[in-house]
């Protein structure tokens, strides 16, 4: 990187454009829809390679889960006293990643952060897929998988309700609510873009498929009005969920009385960590996606830089939490508590603790430098380290606390098994497969929204010779100029 990307140059008094290049409405539509409209045979080979790899991994996940169901959860490394091992670590990891999407869509929407428009669609998609991965783990984690549905309050002949005092039950509600609202929010925002795809469809199948999901969108003023209102309301609904879901996940730990878990700092600390890991994952996906699908003008370096700033901020919050935990462990004067933290940092799991600490707290500090924030190689290294670090954070919390609790007679050291590793890797297969399918068949960028933030000179530009030669019918989704 010899010079700083132009979108990132701050000029006093001038707002840098959110979208780079000189795409017009139609060019933008073309660019985004083009990806989904490619004939099957013309799909880039790389996509095929990627999806065949990810689907193989997904198939392996299926096999591993099958083996697990047939054999028992003993195929994992879980034992006494570490009754929760990798599956729960993976669950929290994926739920955390699932945070960025809704945060970007809902919270930034409410705060009128227009830069979100370029990245919100696939950040939301990422959320949905991450929550899918997350949801998988608690379900397969229980000893009798075939009875996992007992966790839901389904009226039954036993007249048994679940135990409403259990944080695990709150978790069931929190995650399922979050998954539902995220899905609705994502889908609702996509309706105008789906209508665009429908209108541009050349084959019957496409027309029918997109048509069904476009819900008869015509782009009338009335529809736009209702859409905006609905979207706003859903955003308002989703916003508290961003905070609640990971707070509730943290209750799984905080409400227990285990030293190292029983901590009031957990809800905010978990939420910050979730946003941290979520943004890291968005950057991890956005960088290759924008390069591969030619979206560099829409997802500009400025977007990446802003996300890196968020990573820096949340990473520092997480670092603060790590340090304050130690302070409280000492200040609180509870011997079990202070040992739990000493043991984390200097006990047999010190390697995991310091991996976590350096990945999450030390390395992201490089983002104080603008050069680092705007350098693709540096940011890729850092965000991947953050992903690793955040997985280790959950590992450290879950496993080290359990491995040495009150009675030294029951202490133990956790060893993961091959199945543990394969299950975790397999969940990436699920995630990547879903994401690749999404990239290929759905509008990756919220066209309708991006059009609203196109630099003024490009909006419906008539000076564009190509559009004169090939006059574009205004499509149903061309956004009216409203301020979102």
């Amino acid at each position, binding site marked *: 990187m010899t010079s700083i990307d132009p979108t990132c140059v701050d000029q006093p008094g001038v707002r840098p454009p959110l979208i780079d290049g000189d795409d017009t409405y139609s060019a933008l539509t073309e660019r985004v829809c083009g990806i989904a409209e490619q004939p099957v045979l013309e799909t880039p080979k790389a996509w095929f390679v990627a999806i065949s790899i990810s689907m193989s991994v997904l198939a392996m996940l299926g096999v591993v889960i099958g083996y697990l169901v047939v054999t028992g959860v003993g195929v994992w490394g879980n034992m006494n006293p570490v009754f929760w091992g990798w599956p729960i670590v993976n669950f929290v990891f994926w739920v955390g990643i699932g945070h960025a999407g809704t945060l970007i869509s809902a919270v930034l929407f409410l705060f009128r952060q227009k830069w979100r428009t370029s990245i919100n669609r696939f950040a939301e998609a990422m959320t949905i897929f991450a929550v899918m991965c997350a949801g998988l783990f608690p379900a397969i984690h229980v000893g009798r998988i075939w009875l996992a549905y007992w966790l839901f309050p389904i009226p039954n002949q036993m007249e048994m309700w679940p*135990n409403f005092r259990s944080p695990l039950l709150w978790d069931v509600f929190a995650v399922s609510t979050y998954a539902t609202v995220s899905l609705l929010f994502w889908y609702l925002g996509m309706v105008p873009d789906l209508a665009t795809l429908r209108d541009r469809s050349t084959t019957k199948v496409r027309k029918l498929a997109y048509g069904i999901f476009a819900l008869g969108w015509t782009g009338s003023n009335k529809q736009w009005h209702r859409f905006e209102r609905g979207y706003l309301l859903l955003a308002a609904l989703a916003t508290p969920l961003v905070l609640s879901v990971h707070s509730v996940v943290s209750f799984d730990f905080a409400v227990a009385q285990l030293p190292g878990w029983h901590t009031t700092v957990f809800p905010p600390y978990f939420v910050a960590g979730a946003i941290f890991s979520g943004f890291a994952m968005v950057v991890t996906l956005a960088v290759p996606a924008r390069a591969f699908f030619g979206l560099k003008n829409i997802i500009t370096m400025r977007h990446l830089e802003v996300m890196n700033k968020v990573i820096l901020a949340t990473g520092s919050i997480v670092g603060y939490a790590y340090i304050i935990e130690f302070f409280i462990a000492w200040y609180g004067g509870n011997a079990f508590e202070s040992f739990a933290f000493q043991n984390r940092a200097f006990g047999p799991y010190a390697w995991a603790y310091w991996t976590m600490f350096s990945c999450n707290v030390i390395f992201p500090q490089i983002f104080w430098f603008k050069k680092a924030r705007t350098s693709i190689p540096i940011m890729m290294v850092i965000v991947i380290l953050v992903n690793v670090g955040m997985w280790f954070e959950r590992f450290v919390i879950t496993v080290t606390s359990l491995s040495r609790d009150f009675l030294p007679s029951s202490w133990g050291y956790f060893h993961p098994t091959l199945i543990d590793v394969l299950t975790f890797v397999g969940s990436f297969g699920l995630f990547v497969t879903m994401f690749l399918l999404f990239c290929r068949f759905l509008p990756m960028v919220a066209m309708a929204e991006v059009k609203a933030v196109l630099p003024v000179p490009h909006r419906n530009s008539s000076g564009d010779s190509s559009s004169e030669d090939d006059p574009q019918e205004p499509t149903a989704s061309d956004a009216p100029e409203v301020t979102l």
Partner: protein
Amino acid sequence: MSSMNPAGPRNGYYRSLNELENSPEFQELFEREFPGQDTQSISPFTRRRFLQLMGASVALAGAQSCRWEKEEILPFTNRPDGRMPGVPSHYATAFELGGVAQALLVTNYDGRPIKIEGNKEHPASGGATTVYAQGSVLGLYDPERSRGPSKRGAEGKPVDVTFQAIEGALGEALGPLRTAQGRGLAILAEASSSPTLAGLKAKLLESMPETRWVEYESAGRDQVIAGSRIAFGQPVRTQYDLDDAKVIFSLDDDLMRDHPDALRHARAWARHRDPQSGEMNRLYCVESSFSSTGSVADHRLPLRSDQGLAFLLALEVRLQALAGGNASTPRPTALAGKKALAFFDVLAKDLHANKGQSIVCVGARQGAQAHAVAHRINALLGNVGKTLSYTQEPLSEGLGDLKDLCVEMGAGKVQMLLILGGNPVYDAPVDIGFAKALSKVPTSVHLSEFRDETSHLTSWHVNRAHYLESWGDARSWDGTICMVQPQIEPIFGGKTSLDLMALILGIKDSSGLDLVQAEAENYFGDVEDVDRSWRKALHDGFVAGSAYPKITPALATFDAKGAGASADALAVNGKLELVFVTDSRLYDGRFGNNGWLQETPDFITKLTWDNAALMDIETAEHLGVENDTLVELSIGGRKLEVAAYVLPGQAKGSVALFLGFGRREAGRVGGSVVQGIPAPGFDAGTLRSSVSPWVASGLKVTARHEGFTLATTQDHWAIDKVGFEARQGRIGELVRGGTLEEFEHKNDFATEEDPELFTLWERPDVSVNHAWGMGIDLGKCIGCNACVIGCTAENNIPIVGKEEVINNRELHWIRIDRYFAGDGKDPRVVHQPLGCQQCENAPCEQVCPVAATTHTEEGLNDMVYNRCVGTRYCANNCPYKVRRFNYFNFNKDLEDPANAVRKMGKNPEVTIRHRGVMEKCTYCVQRIQQGKIAAKREGNRPIRDGEILAACQQACPTEAITFGDLKDSKSKVAQAHKNPRAYALLGELNVSPRTLYLAQIRNPHADLANLDHVNKAENHNDKH
């Protein structure tokens, strides 16, 4: 059915030409196909018989793959008297181990013995049991027990034969021996105190006086007996009465676990460990490796076993001098350090001060001279007739006899060898070459429950009936005759020693019952109604008043010399000592195929499924040996590679090795070469010679630096620094205790620092009709594991195997946490049995999302297996980590038809848990319910205290565990909870456990206690 007649084809139809000819080959084939069928007795069909068989074959269609010898289904059209389906019945019997009977009471469900308890009426048991007796019931249902007699075929492979074939062969071989007065006939029996067997033996020796009779036990007490010969000129058995002893000094003697009379000792010792009920006794131990007794001693000195005699002699000299007012005689040279020297001085002083109220006892591993000296010391102290007495000794010194027998066998002088039990090929000392000598014997018969190492080398094997299937009798340590009566028809057939003896003697048509009954008439003495006495003996399980009379043998004068070495010379590699220890679970290896015992953690090392070379920290450092690595032990030219285990408190320069592991033909659990199953552990026997079967000097240890994972249920002493410091720092808080002085100063010292607890909410009433609770006295627990096995048997706890123990997935509902306190050289040990604490405010219940664990009104924390989905959250939130999870279907092997017999041993009152569910101690809720139902049926009377016993409590020899209703303020448990020593483990968590622990009170001698204080202060200063 009658077409099975091997006599020839019926109706002219035949299956092969052989059959037509009825050739010997066919006869043999037939026998092999239907072993044990008394084909003559099968009568032609009747209509009823036909219908029965048709019914049975339909009913058994699903069980056709099981190879039962005989299937009978007889409906109870007329219910036998006193038999109620589903209601357990209890019968007394006895279990003989090493020639000493343990009186038992067996619980039977629908004719199946499922649980062993001690016979409460019998003074030696008092209702308690040893781990061996508890575990023996699993042996009954071992599918690998031999199912029929066999003959050694080509390449040593056993070929199934009928007992008749053996009868025939033996009859033939016996003919010439009979005429030769028994010359050439030898009988090698395991030690037995059975009067019936002794009677038959006498008969045999009468009719064939040249017969050689040898009794051998690999864990025998030869040197004890030899010692009494030196001291008294005759074999004498010492009976200790710990009740009257104020000071007990044990040299290498595990009085309370390994001793044949351990249960009585433990109970008596424990009665004087409660400062609130009389004066406490004081226990001194000098030993090379931790024994249960040593682990609870008030003062313990680790010392090499080969220094024992020198120590005793020095002690004797000191005691003699003290009697003359002189207190400065030489101390044993092996003692180094202020503490060790003070130990000696104080021990002598204390023994002297408690003349007539003390006991000096010496363990079986010590040499004959040491035992003789101990007798002299006891006489010097005037203890004889007060704290100990003498009776006759029925057992003999078998090792010498076995050696002689081996020589004769090797010389071809033995024509026929009858091995009645035991497994000499595995457990006889290597240097006498038993296996080789055996090959020179033309006819050898091995009576054994398993086709084990010995069975593979003898020409015939006869399957032995389990003691729960047999008639017999045996004497307990004090001589009281115990009756052995069958609880069940032999599952796989089988013979007893008595049957074989009857065969040799040519006694026809005489069952074990007849033989025992005939002998019983002799020991009932002069009674009018023999039948009544017989029934009473069977009912009681023993013949009251049949104990040996006390004798007062005269002490001979003898010289004893023991060379003491200097302390520094003791830790030289090549001059180390190797001590063989009977294993706390497998004994001498006979329980090798018993999964319960294999998986029981050793009381001190917490090792399961393995033995290891135990060595102390200093010696290990000196030798460059680490935990969980292999070492090579070499002694007298013999070598063995074995895993090392560094144990604090082991004597410097002494390496201990448990016997009983590394079996070659034990079975699927204990290892089998034939089946290709590696044996757990290492065969210590390969290092054991007849010259030094217990303590061998001149050991060289070579570190191999090769890893070997030992399956322990608790961390090693050595862990990382952070963990070590935290663990040692917590011990005082978790296992509370103090000295008698501290207790007398402030009797609630154990709880004085406990914080006051508050609650924000009104808690639900969990003491509605009853409030079940438990009290565990840490001062009494000796860590013997009886509770662990008792619980395993009662609650159908499956074994998980070595791999899963390494993965920390063992399922024991009660575990005994063992903590070392103090320094690694000479630590104190505390045993803490830990089952579910049944918290009133249970943290597990709040977090279960499906409400699978809930509270009863009586305060039990119930586990609803059917509701459990297995989130395992409860276990995470359990501060005691007593919840156990079924990571796999650990009962899966029951689905194998070959294991069908194992189902018979399950307790029908307790659910078999499926995989994926949590389980834990229930306070034996099934027993509580039975007690409640019984009380309700008897007019809703209140439940008596002590009527309901938890399985762990019932098995406990020291009565450390009390259980009952806290609402009954007079109950023992309510008293225990009110005891000022009572404290709640982790009580500050406000979980209100229903199990309280009573702080351990130690009774150190003031002089040594002060020394401890000084040391403590010194250590304290070192730190700053």
